């Protein structure tokens, strides 16, 4: 038994001796191990930072959500129909934006050809209208009415399949709300 103990002690002593005699290699290995641990930790921190930066960048991207609250049509004199759309615009971005253009798209068919007529917003504004250009701050929301006057000659008797209001922001992005059926008040 003592012989075995002696052997174990000898082995430990021999190992320690070897470690002491090769201390530079041991130190280098220990430093490498510490570096590996630090590097792994740093990698995790970097990934978290990248995720955060990406989320911030995502929030800075222009994003406008239009909501169609109500819509109606009414006949005006001189063979004109006025289409009105009550719209709320919400900015989902941390960047300021503005709406620069509003159009009414009327989708209809002529024989077998699908046509989309693009009607500009009525330039004569009344109280409550969305007046363009409309500044939309970061995380801001605005409400108003978009009115479009359409002469009977435009449709020339064609039946509209779809009404869509398309709003274009300063980044050139188009935002669209659609309505299938418009009621007369």
């Amino acid at each position, binding site marked *: 038994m003592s012989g075995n103990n002696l052997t174990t002690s000898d082995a430990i002593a021999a190992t320690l001796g070897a470690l002491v005699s090769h201390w530079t290699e041991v130190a280098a290995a220990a430093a490498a191990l510490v570096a590996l641990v630090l590097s792994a930790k740093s990698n995790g921190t970097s990934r978290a930072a990248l995720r955060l930066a990406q989320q911030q960048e995502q929030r800075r991207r222009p994003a406008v959500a239009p909501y169609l609250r109500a819509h109606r049509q009414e006949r005006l004199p001189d063979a004109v129909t006025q289409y009105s759309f009550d719209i709320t615009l919400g900015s989902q971005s941390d960047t300021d934006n503005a709406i620069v253009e509003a159009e009414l798209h009327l989708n209809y068919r*002529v*024989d*077998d*050809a*699908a*046509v989309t*007529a693009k*009607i500009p917003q009525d330039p004569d504004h009344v109280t409550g209208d969305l007046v363009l250009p409309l500044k939309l701050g970061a995380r801001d929301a605005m409400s108003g009415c978009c009115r479009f006057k359409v*002469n009977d000659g*435009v449709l020339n008797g064609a039946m509209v399949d779809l009404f869509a209001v398309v709003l274009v922001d300063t980044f050139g992005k188009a935002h669209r709300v659609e309505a299938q059926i418009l009621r007369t008040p």
Partner: protein
Amino acid sequence: MKKPRLQTITLNHPRERVPVAIVGDGSIATVGVGEGRMVPLVILDTRERQDLAEFIRLHQFITAGDVAVSWNKFDRNPDVISLVLRFSKPSETVAIIPFDLRKSHAILVEQILASRGLYIQAGEPGDRLRNDPNRPKVIVEIPDLDFGADWEKMLKGYAVRTYRAKGMSRAKAVPAAAQFMALLRAMAAARPFSASSAPTSPASPPREE
């Protein structure tokens, strides 16, 4: 001269890839449009292109319009150049208008380059401007697209080839072609009246070929 380059044209419908033939032409000069320049007019065969006819009709009611313009060559035929009009307002459609030098369309191209404009009108074979001058038409602004040098080479090549085919020697065909081009250019640049003159009638008599 610029090296030709490939260009992708986005279409809204496969029918738009078929060139819209010119079935009639003429020119219109008014004091109020283009400072009295003779602006060419082409009557397009829209029997299979109701979308294009509708675009022209719509423009009477919705004056706001938007178009992207380019000159393109679609095949190896040296005598055909196409004007590609990509309309985005008041409706979206693409029109490929081929100008064939063998059909005397050179004067139209010269007039387009001189006046920087082109009237388009919907129609069918047999239609003439004089038969219905009040028919809806749209004026398209054609900006300077650096096409002049290419056109010069194309027109000169066509004129020389034509004179040579008629038996003229090359030595005579080249100056004859230059003379032809100068005459064509002078015709295209003609102005019946300037913006400052005030004719009793706002429009000159339409020219037809």
